[in-house]
């Protein structure tokens, strides 16, 4: 049945709305930002309030190398998406693999720092307020990095199987939005924990 009052083809031909993948991921990022904000607020609220135990100044070393790795991975994933848009599949695969590697290095470095903090400095989540807020905030971020790595690995697998083509560049871009979000969160966490909090 016709459902138009008048056939205004000009309306139809000019009608374009945002891509749902971008909007959906933006919504997810908004929700996740709110979750991180609450953990950051708790961290800031509890700065200097621990009753005992190691303080940030005593035990925290600036994770420069890990940070450089993670932030560079934003550049590499941007390059990857650009390559896929131009149908340059081998460049895409290479940049993508680099992103995965850099992200994995970051996670590994976080693990090393935690191992040092737990076994050499005696700081755990239940030691004091600093331990509680530090491990929960950095841990929440590391969890999101892990999820990102799983996604990166899945896409890499699909690429190696030849399933990822230029027409998927929008979908890959949506995933890249998530990865950029993870990086921005790290900038905030780094500032709050390693600069303000010390």
């Amino acid at each position, binding site marked *: *049945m*016709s459902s*138009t009052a008048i056939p205004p083809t000009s309306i139809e031909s000019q009608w374009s709305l945002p891509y749902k993948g971008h*909007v959906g991921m933006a*919504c997810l990022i908004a*929700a996740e930002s709110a979750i991180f904000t609450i953990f950051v607020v708790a961290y800031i609220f*509890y700065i200097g309030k621990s009753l005992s135990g190691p303080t940030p100044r005593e035990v925290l070393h600036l994770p420069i190398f890990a940070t450089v790795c993670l932030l560079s991975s934003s550049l590499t994933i941007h390059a990857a998406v650009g390559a896929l848009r131009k149908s340059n599949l081998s460049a895409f695969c290479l940049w993508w693999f680099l992103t995965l590697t850099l992200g994995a290095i970051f996670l590994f470095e976080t693990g090393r720092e935690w191992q040092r903090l737990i076994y050499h400095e005696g700081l755990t989540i239940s030691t004091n307020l600093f331990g*509680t807020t530090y491990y929960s905030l950095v841990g929440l971020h590391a969890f999101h990095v892990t999820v990102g790595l799983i996604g990166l690995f899945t896409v890499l697998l699909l690429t190696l199987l030849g399933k990822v083509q230029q027409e998927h560049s929008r979908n890959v871009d949506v995933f890249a939005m998530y990865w950029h979000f993870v990086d921005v969160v790290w900038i905030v966490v780094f500032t709050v924990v390693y600069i303000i909090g010390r």
Partner: protein
Amino acid sequence: MSSESIALTAVREPSRPLGDALYSWVTTVDHKRLGILYILYAILFLVIGGIEASVMRLQLIVPHNHFVSPQTFNRMFTMHGTTMVFFVAMPVLFGFGNYLIPLMIGARDMAFPRLNAWSFWLTAFGGLLLYFSFVGGNGLYGAGSAPDVGWFAYAPLTAKTFSVGHSTDFWTLGLLVSGFGSIGAAVNFVATIVCLRCPGMSLGKMPLLVWLNLVMGAMVLLVISPLTAAQVMLSLDRFLGAHFFDTQAGGSAVLWMHFFWIFGHPEVYVLVIPAFAFVSEIIPVFSRKPIFGYPVMVAATVCIGFVSFGVWAHHMFTIGMNSYANSFFVITTMVVGVPTGIKIFNWLGTMWGGKLQFKTPMLFCIGFLFQFLVAGLTGIMLAAAPFDWQLGNSYFVVAHFHYVIVGGILFGLFAAFYYWFPKMSGHLYNEKLGTLHFWLFVIGFHLTFDFMHIPGILGMPRRIYTYEPGRGWDLWNFIVTIGVFFQAVAILIFVGNLLYSMFKGKLAGNDPWDGWTLEWSTSSPPPEYNFARIPVVRSRRPLWDLKHPEDPDWKYE
């Protein structure tokens, strides 16, 4: 203009074996079916939550009653509140939104149908996890049943030392899981409304229901997340020995209150805005007039959305914040009443000069207008901090928020049920039974919640399982409980009417109410694909344009 139905045959799928039919419902990604699943789930929990309320009211009908133990009473008020907010109100509103939004914007489904299904089943599982506590809350050490810490689970009562066993964990985890479902549904709402509108339907031409669900969806993203974060923190405290809310380690129990109410207050606006949406669609149709002041309605709702994030500590006036903090929240709470009041004027303005039809949906909308106004006024009273110092945590507060939720939101929901039931089922409900439901429920609602204000003013606190005789509370508690029977009977009539009409009601046709939005152009119930051809619209009332080609709306908008 004829208001006859266009088609008189209900669309019926050929009947299939029961197993096949059930499988199709369980694996569906169709927004209409998921909407109906959400709604049915909510109705089930409405009855369960109502039973929990009835248990409390029976315990309180006379002083020194022994209907249930104090421990059971604590579980009842915890589960009643948690159930009604998370497993009745949220699902039913997501259900109506899911069903109606694609139809109203001329789309074939939501933006992410599989995410839609995932969100529903996650919400459903969360509810089952919470209720499993009645059976399995005993854990390994034989302590605990359903959670009994209040629906807001204040620290440090929820700490491991004070809440032994796992009842609190069922609360935390059940809500955590269903919270992810809510976020998924919200992502879907926003993406669908922003990206899938049919050609010609700019943001200024969407039905108000769609606008208000957009605001609600955006709010949910920012509202549920603080609760999720706080529940993760609580779980870390309980399971890994963290100290977020542990005062003995320097932590702060008040921090939980801040985080919870940063969720809790905007949450009630999340619940009421879809009720506004229903009323904004139904009142115009039964006044035969377009909504008065569409742009202002949108602006007021967006305003409410923003301001509602700044009022949370009016739930914390009694904990001893300094006077600057108290004053700030007094002012913001009063400010949020302004756009809300504007909307009431606009609904009245829609009815003014219209040709009113007092069908059942309209009756409930009129009830909504009056009751929501009164509820808002008691809210403004409570917004004055010194007034709240006297009446906070008393039955005055309980009466206030039930006035909003039952008198406002539930009445709006009943209006929506009756209005869209013909579309969803293909049949008309029985108008006489609908009217009977309305009047019985009005009597019951007012008996219960009008008189509930009085024991509050006379000093009766919340969450007490019994009370002394001779304080002047006895008569009022008795009347309050009597009202429950009227409401229960009304709900039975409601459910019976819908069930009977689903099978034996008169066929509704496409457009029983002579409506103006796109859902009325489909058959009742709509085909799975909604629209054979995606419609193109030129005004806010595309069906008016179709029915009145000589006088279309787009000439005036």
